[in-house]
């Protein structure tokens, strides 16, 4: 080999890098401040307003516990608490049992079609929550299509979806994907040779599952039981849509109704109720963190197959189990979505007349002509697109600072990024309402879309973190070091090395943010004003006026947009991965 012993004179090494005029920690500090202020900020006005005798925008007022006394003296409050606990218990038991069974069936047995089911079972996560609820109402609700078939046409005793058990069932269907993902991740992380050992000791599949698999899953099960229970405490859509006919209120809907129909505006006891719920939910999640290891804080759809693992043989139950699983998906997702479409195109939902005789485009016409409804679509798209992109950028920067920098306060960032999703949406909404009222910068966003966009984005930024962080953790830290030793400062490393490598994760985070922002509504039910309508709240308010068709049409639009974004996202992601 030949080696040039002398360098050509025209090519001289560049000057060694010099110190920058602004240290990297200045920018890092700014990102840290923005994240922490957005996440923690809203809670101070919330607590403050619950302790004042008058709304904070009125002069005067003293510190008092009157709001809490009012709350505790209200029999409706206690009724709502009882309903919520009953609902949460029912939904949690159903969801944990169902989700675990589904996960074991798909991950550990030779169920036919298990690969397809693995995808289909998490579909409810991307279906807009209100769309699913309205679809269920259209089919299984008190006046729903199938309910009518059974009661009016077949004269059989019929279920009541508007009862607490009925709502628990829907609550379980909505939360089952969370259990499914947690348990599946736990199964992927546990060594299946433990199960093989039991089999070689002569245990039959059922015994292996009950004596080895389930006991191994205990930490994961405890973990998601607490999580589901906490999620159920804050559910707003189910009681507002399903509970209304039977006058059943849950905690969140009680707060919402007291707020919007109270005699005096902005009652302090709603803030008090929000503070109480915040304390309870935070306590539950702290308990959960204690119970489970730090790794299980993230629900990851692990793609790790069992390798050479031979699945448990279901024997003659193979096909019945597979058909049952298919029927479950059909009944809980596919039929309600079809019901949604049906509801948006008929004059009335009835089984007495064939639907094609009742066909009408009125609902769609209303959506196209009513400026409020139209605005809700464009506003939601704006928030989902712009807010989603901005959130992903902010969270990406914060994640890099939290895990790949020497910033002194970096360890506080990860909890700050996880917390918002743990806080009930209505509480965050009330918090932002008071924040915008109390602080002058808040006034800038109070009467326009920004306020709602910020609340929705803060509430859901956890999702972006949960997608970005695992991808970042897989990037070799020597990549950063190689760039640093090449002379690049921290921000250059982030911009030129880490973010480009993270591109697929950033896109996935954006798609998830877009879908969630499009469907989410609880943080903004207290913030919406004429002109700043978003899809979810508009659907809620239109439904409460008794107008059904356009709500179904909006839900269909939501589902179609989500489907398009998912397809586009998957295609771009595939191209990114190939590159």
């Amino acid at each position: 080999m030949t080696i040039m012993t002398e360098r050509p004179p025209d090519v001289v090494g560049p000057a060694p890098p010099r110190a920058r005029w602004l240290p990297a920690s200045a920018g890092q500090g700014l990102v840290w401040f923005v994240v922490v202020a957005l996440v923690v900020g809203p809670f101070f006005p919330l607590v403050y307003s619950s302790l004042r005798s008058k709304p904070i925008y009125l002069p005067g007022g003293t510190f008092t516990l009157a709001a809490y006394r009012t709350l505790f003296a209200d029999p409706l409050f206690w009724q709502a608490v009882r309903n919520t606990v009953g609902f949460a218990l029912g939904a949690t038991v159903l969801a944990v049992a169902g989700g675990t069974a589904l996960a074991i069936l798909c991950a550990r047995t030779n169920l036919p079609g298990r690969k397809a089911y693995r995808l289909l079972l998490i579909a409810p996560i991307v279906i807009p929550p209100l769309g699913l609820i309205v679809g269920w109402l259209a089919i299984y609700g008190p006046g729903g299509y199938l309910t009518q078939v059974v009661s009016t046409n077949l004269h059989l005793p019929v279920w009541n979806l508007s009862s607490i058990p009925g709502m628990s069932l829907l609550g379980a269907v909505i939360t089952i994907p969370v259990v499914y993902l947690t348990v599946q991740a736990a199964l992927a992380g546990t060594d299946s040779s433990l199960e093989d050992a039991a089999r070689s000791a002569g245990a039959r599949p059922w015994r292996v599952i009950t004596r080895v698999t389930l006991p191994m899953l205990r930490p994961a099960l405890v973990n998601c039981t607490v999580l589901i229970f906490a999620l159920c405490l804050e559910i707003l859509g189910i009681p507002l849509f399903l509970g209304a006919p039977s006058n059943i209120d849950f905690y969140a809907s009680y707060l919402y109704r007291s707020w919007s129909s109270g005699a005096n505006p902005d009652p302090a006891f709603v803030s008090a109720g929000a503070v109480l719920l915040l304390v309870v939910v935070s306590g539950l999640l702290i308990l959960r963190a204690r119970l489970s290891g730090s790794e299980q804080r993230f629900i990851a759809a692990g793609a790790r197959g069992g390798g050479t693992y031979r699945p448990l043989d279901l024997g003659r139950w193979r096909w019945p189990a597979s058909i049952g699983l298919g029927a479950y998906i059909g009944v809980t997702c596919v039929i309600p979505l079809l019901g949604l479409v049906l509801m948006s195109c008929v004059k009335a939902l009835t089984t007495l007349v064939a639907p094609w005789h009742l066909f009408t485009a009125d609902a769609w016409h209303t959506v196209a002509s009513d400026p409020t409804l139209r605005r809700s679509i464009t506003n939601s798209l704006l928030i989902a697109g712009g807010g989603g992109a901005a959130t992903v950028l902010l969270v990406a920067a914060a994640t890099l600072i939290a895990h790949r920098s020497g910033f002194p306060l970096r360890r506080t960032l990860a909890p700050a990024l996880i917390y918002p999703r743990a806080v009930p949406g209505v509480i965050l909404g009330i918090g932002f309402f008071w924040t915008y009222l109390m602080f002058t910068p808040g006034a800038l966003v109070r009467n326009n879309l920004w306020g709602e966009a910020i609340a929705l984005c803060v509430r859901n930024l956890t999702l972006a973190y949960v997608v970005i962080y695992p991808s970042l953790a897989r990037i070799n830290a020597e990549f950063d070091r190689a760039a640093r030793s090449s002379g690049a400062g921290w921000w250059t490393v982030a911009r030129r090395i880490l973010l480009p490598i993270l591109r697929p994760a950033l896109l996935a985070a954006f798609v998830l943010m877009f879908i969630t922002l499009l469907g989410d509504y609880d943080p903004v039910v207290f913030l919406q004003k004429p002109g700043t309508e978003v899809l979810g709240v508009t659907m809620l308010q239109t439904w409460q006026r008794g107008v059904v068709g356009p709500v179904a049409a909006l839900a269909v639009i939501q589902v179609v947009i989500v489907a398009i974004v998912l397809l586009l996202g998957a295609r771009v992601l595939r191209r990114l991965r190939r590159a």
Partner: protein
Amino acid sequence: MPDIRVDHLSKSFSGTKVLDDISFTVKDKEFVTLLGPSGCGKTTTLMCIAGFQTPDHGRIACGDDTFVGDRIDRPAEQRNLGIVFQSYAIWPHMTVAQNVAFPLRVRKMSKPATRARVAEVLALVELGALAGRYPHQLSGGQQQRVALARAIAPSPAVLLLDEPFSNLDAKLRERARDWLQELQHALGLTTVFVTHDQDEALSMSDRILVMNGGHLLREGTPEEVYRRPGARFVAEFVGQCNFLTGAVRAGPDGGAVLITAEFGDGIAVQGRHDGPRGTIAVRPEDIEISSGVEGGTEASVLHASYLGDHYHYRVAVGATQLSVHSSRPLAPGPVRLRIPPGVATFVD
């Protein structure tokens, strides 16, 4: 190019001392190797020089530049070092040329000058034809050369190598070793090299620093370290070694003689030793054995294995077993064994 001075470097991780008062100097254009088992602190030392770890105490300076010490801790990106990492850390989203150009671009070098320098450096590592490839399209050896090209592209003050051969197979490793050494000499790069492989250390270094448990045990040229290891750990870690313990007597010419039960006539040892008893190290290839009946000590071959270029024998001398390398085939059974004067050396 400047030299690197490391003074009294100490570092602890959660109470465990990983570096305990390490001091050494790497002179201009010198190739110095930090050798030791995993966990000995060699990589920590390198990362302290690179700026990815901050020592608890001590000072690191490069020429007149203080990297660490005197309340200075210069960030890694301002130390002007070239580093080749164990994983190579070639950025997967950039081509070979973009990888090599990166340190030049962050130094705000003009585009034409960058292009010329990238071409020059890639030609140097014989990768000119692969400039447009992405890292996953390269073999392990090619990736290693990209990493090296990227490290030397901005003409760094010092080159740091963190086990750069550990991901290569044995044949390629030997070639890469020769090639890197030639390059280092040709460019006159001051180099600090970290490895746990004694062959790499012996064949490439101007000087070797043997580390263990956060301490610097021995410093010297490869020959000095191999011939006079000084410490038992060094003797064992760098090559194979036999150890014999016995009484020390003064020998002729100011040397010493070690007397054991097996070697009643004594073994002439180079160097001096204080105290009545001592331990010596003898390399297996320095021991002479023969099937004759005259001279040396009675011994017997217990086990023989053929290693291609030599035989490895396990030999019993009385109650002691010794390893012996010899090019001569010997049948198991009685042999004569001799330790020539001067090959043994005292160890702690």
